């Protein structure tokens, strides 16, 4: 963390006035742990201590009455409401919008050299991009190739079948999977279905997509 002498001074000053960490937090944008660290040496007067204790008790009472589960439930309801409201902001994609969304995803996930390649582990995203390649870029389905990155202890056949069903690319168009040798055990989040790379061997198409991205970027 960078030293923040100004913030430190302000925080200590506020603490001396008897404010709680949360109250300080509302005035100074630093983390709570920084506040706690800076205020370690600050002594409070008995009156200040009493005020904070009473405040703490009131909060505790609220949690006891409501229960932590109730608070979590309330938040869940809030999130649900946000999601439903947000859905109304986006309508289903028109053909031209479909083109833009795919181009942006290509910017994020696609290869910038060689042919057209998309690498990802999210089945929804891969499904979307295969449809985009076929419908927007007019890629011939029989020219789409797939390749998996999996770990040594995973079942190649089963995972190929899984991705073949998602992408509608026949298993015969899957290349040899890249099998990552067993590592040092540091990596813990091994993906169940590995990573898939979809390839359409057309350098011309890649130049076309990259131009779309350039135009979209420049429109800002």
């Amino acid at each position, binding site marked *: 963390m960078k030293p923040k002498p100004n913030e430190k001074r302000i925080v200590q000053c506020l603490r001396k006035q008897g404010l709680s960490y949360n109250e300080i937090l509302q005035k100074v944008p630093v983390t709570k742990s920084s506040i706690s660290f800076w205020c370690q040496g600050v002594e409070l007067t008995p009156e200040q201590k009493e005020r904070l204790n009473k405040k703490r008790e009131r909060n505790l009472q609220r949690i006891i009455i409501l229960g932590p589960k109730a608070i979590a439930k309330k938040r869940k309801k809030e999130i649900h409401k946000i999601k439903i*409201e947000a859905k109304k902001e*986006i309508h289903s994609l028109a053909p031209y919008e479909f083109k833009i969304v795919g181009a942006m995803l290509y910017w*994020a996930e696609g290869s910038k050299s060689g042919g057209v390649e998309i690498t990802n582990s999210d089945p929804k995203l891969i499904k979307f991009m295969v449809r985009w390649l076929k419908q927007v870029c007019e890629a011939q389905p029989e020219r789409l190739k797939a390749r998996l990155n999996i770990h040594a202890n995973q079942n190649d056949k089963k995972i190929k079948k899984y991705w073949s069903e998602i992408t509608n690319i026949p298993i015969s168009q899957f290349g040899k999977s890249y099998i990552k040798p067993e590592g040092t055990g540091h990596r813990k989040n091994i993906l169940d279905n590995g990573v898939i790379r979809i390839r359409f061997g057309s350098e011309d198409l890649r130049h076309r997509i990259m131009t779309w991205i350039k135009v979209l970027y420049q429109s800002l």
Partner: protein
Amino acid sequence: MKKLWQLRENAIKLRRLGWAYSEIQKKVPVHKITLSKWCRDIELTSRQIKSHGGRYANRLKGAKANCLKRQKEIIRIQKKAENEIHILTPYELKIAGAALYWGEGNKSHGLAFSNSDPELVKFMMKWFQETCEVPNKKIRAYLYLHTGQNEKKMQKYWSRVTNIPLNQFNKTILKKEGSASRKYSQDKYKGTIKIQVLNENLKHRILSWIEQFNFT
């Protein structure tokens, strides 16, 4: 075994001395196409070309002509593609940014995204500010750099790109240089930036927009 970037540095050194790919290949055991990718920007001097005999010079000439022809073709493709897309409307910017977030953004913990492409990062910043109406003070940045890079300089660079003030840059995460199979050149590679937005509700909103994409 040697790291790939070490092989690459060796190959480039030998090419600068005027070696032919077939000769380099004996010392650096990679495919010729890989060699040509690594060394394509190195122009041999006429003396170096001559030392390989007349047929070699002709072959180089032919390759250059092919290259020029292809460059013209690419320009034609790009011109045509430019007419297939137009400037973004506000609504299109909204879905475009959401698509980028689908690709690069954090889906589980907090609202954040990471990338090393300054144009893409600029695009996302614009999207956060214009579409999502995120105030600048709600944004934090983290850099991921290699040990050989100058942290202060890189923070200044990314601060200029993103317009995020330097005091909103949090602790930089360093990685030992050359420990991976790739090694990046100092001037081209500016590290990776993670932009964090302190707004959990917005994350749920964005993820909900992304879900809508699957119903087309």
